[in-house]
């Protein structure tokens, strides 16, 4: 499916600009319900002017996109590039039992592979491109208002070009009993593919819901997922959000999850990265109301040449809120990791409690971890702390286990499981926890 031009090999950006023209013309010509909004036009203008980051950009210092961006992507063919069948999808699914399942292939919604089990009083789902008609207020209020496309080139690109993804609305006072599993499959079996899903989850007052985003790539070609998810928890709502990445060695992922919390709301995020080529996760939480709770958990278990970069921001703008962040990583092989955790406490945000911990175990001399906590505190009556450590497995612990007859490999596996357990124990969905535990247990027992 890749069209390799022997003439000028256009660079990533100019190709995307050309594609956008086609996209725009297509939107004007066919009678499809999508029309480019002023907002998309605006996002496109920002994409045009913003630079694609290099390692000279402070926020991209340790994550080099050169290899990713020099790939020859065909933007136009993502939809046609896949005929993924239910049988082909099956190996990518978790054993989640009775749950809401939404499947997106190359960024496009596949109704035929999806299944909603919750009653419509609890759960409203639309493809994001068609949601405005029915959910005008929510879309106008939140879509692309939470994630900032004016500063982030990838968010701008996603906002400009994508009208596929999940719009999920949980009405006020409803507790969504069954979680929503969203599978984002990049089907690179026939060529290099860019998929750009765009999601918005709105939890009404006093509502509660759980979302699981699972990212998978099929096929041997290069896949690039550029995803943006906006989560809004209105007053007193509770959102539990999981992002699971278990990808191929040719899979690239740049994603932004942006949460906006209303008063008394609770947002818990768990980001698990297990494999892939390059993964960049931006998780930004804006607490612009009082008495909110935010939990940010992360675990990356890496080997090969996988590179994972977690950039998080918790922005405390109002008083009396609590945020707690725990990211842990185990790096083997030639893998590299980045943790950049920023906590901002604005002058108004008195009585804030904000905690952050990042712990890493580096197993191989060729693996590396860069960690950078950033605390910016402008209020004086707050409790904040951060801590970061990077080290090897504890030799004393290892010896203790071995001295009881446990072989070196099993002893290491036991210690790594215990290390990861701090994060895994926070995963309340059993199918997700089992899935992640299986992947890492297999890895510990074969590679340790």
């Amino acid at each position, binding site marked *: 499916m890749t069209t390799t031009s022997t003439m000028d090999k256009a660079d990533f950006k100019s190709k995307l600009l050309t594609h956008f023209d086609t996209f725009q013309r297509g939107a004007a010509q066919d009678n499809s319900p999508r029309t480019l909004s002023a907002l998309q036009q605006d996002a496109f203008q920002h994409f045009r002017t913003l630079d694609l980051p290099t390692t000279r950009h402070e926020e991209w210092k340790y994550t080099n996109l050169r290899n990713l961006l020099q790939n020859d992507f065909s933007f136009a063919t993502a939809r046609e590039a896949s005929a993924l069948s239910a049988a082909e999808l099956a190996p990518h699914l978790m054993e989640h039992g009775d749950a809401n399942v939404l499947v997106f292939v190359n960024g496009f919604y596949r109704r035929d592979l999806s299944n909603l089990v919750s009653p419509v009083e609890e759960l409203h789902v639309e493809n994001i491109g068609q949601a405005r008609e029915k959910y005008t207020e929510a879309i106008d209020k939140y879509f692309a208002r939470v994630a900032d496309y004016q500063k982030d080139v990838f968010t701008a690109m996603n906002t400009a070009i994508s009208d596929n993804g999940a719009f999920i609305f949980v009405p006020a006072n409803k507790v969504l009993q069954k979680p929503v599993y969203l599978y984002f499959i990049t089907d690179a079996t026939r060529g290099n593919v860019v998929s750009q899903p765009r999601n918005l989850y709105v939890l009404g007052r006093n509502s509660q819901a759980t979302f699981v985003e699972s990212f998978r790539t099929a096929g041997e070609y290069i896949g690039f997922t550029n995803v943006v998810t906006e989560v809004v928890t209105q007053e007193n709502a509770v959102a539990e959000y999981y992002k699971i990445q278990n990808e191929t060695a040719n899979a690239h992922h740049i994603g932004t999850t942006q949460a906006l919390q209303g008063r008394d709301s609770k947002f818990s995020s768990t980001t698990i990265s297990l494999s892939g080529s390059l993964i960049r996760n931006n998780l930004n939480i804006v607490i612009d109301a009082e008495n909110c709770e935010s939990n940010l958990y992360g675990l990356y278990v890496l080997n090969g040449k996988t590179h994972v970069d977690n950039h998080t921001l918790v922005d405390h703008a109002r008083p009396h809120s609590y945020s707690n962040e725990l990211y842990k990583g185990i790096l083997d092989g030639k893998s590299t990791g980045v943790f950049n955790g920023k906590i901002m406490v604005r002058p108004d945000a008195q009585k804030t409690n904000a905690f952050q911990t990042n712990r890493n175990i580096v197993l191989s001399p060729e693996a590396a971890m860069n960690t950078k906590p950033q605390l910016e505190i402008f209020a004086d009556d707050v409790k904040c702390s951060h801590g970061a450590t990077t080290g090897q497995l504890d030799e004393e612990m290892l010896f*203790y*286990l*071995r001295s*009881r*007859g446990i*072989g070196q490999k099993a002893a290491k596996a036991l*210690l790594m499981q*215990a290390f990861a357990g701090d994060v895994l124990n926070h995963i309340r969905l059993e199918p997700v926890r089992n899935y992640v535990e299986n992947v890492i247990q297999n890895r510990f027992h074969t590679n340790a």
Partner: protein
Amino acid sequence: MLSIRNLHAAIDGKEILKGLNLEVKAGEIHAIMGPNGSGKSTLASVLAGREEYEVTDGEVIYNGTDLLELSPEDRAREGIFLAFQYPVEIPGVSTTNFLKTAVNEVRKYRGQEPLDAVQFLTRMKEKMKLVNIDQALLSRSLNEGFSGGEKKRNEIFQLAMLEPKLAILDETDSGLDIDALRIVAEGVNKLRTRDNAVVLVTHYQRLLDYIVPDFVHVLYKGRIVKSGTKELALQLEEKGYDWIKEEVSA
């Protein structure tokens, strides 16, 4: 069972053991005493296989095999158990889970079927009584936040679960109050058979009131300089080590 001949061992280039000899037969209890810095803990560490100690000379034969050639896990699987002076805390690993892994790895090595959950629990309950240890403690992370006495009791509990042929207790009695000491000693006594042996490394004669040794050895400057029966321990308690030091330098 255990035959140590002319053992020399060093750490960071500093020689600690300087020609140690010791013979332990099945069914025997040996106490190794000595002043601080004489090499007691080094001996225990070398026998358990700590890699930071370098054996520079001599040999250790355990049931006909060269012990020093075995990895720490294989020593354990062959039936050697070291009760640590300072048991390590391991967050996130419960004692139960850890012991199940250990017991079954040892069984696998010996060509035995692994214990299933029910068999394991039965065995655990039986051994828990022996050392008066609580189920709640065993469900917690291994040694994490345990008191000194709880840690030592946990060591003896592990000993009971693993049923070693040769148990080496490295200052297990240090820092224990009399009740904890009694429990630990009782545990060791109950586990004693004609086929296994115990080496007690201790600083204090008091332990030997509860676990009666067949032999008492004095370790000084890296060698065993005097051996006797339990009366020797009483003598040491009464007179200290100075007379031994004088004997050695004379």
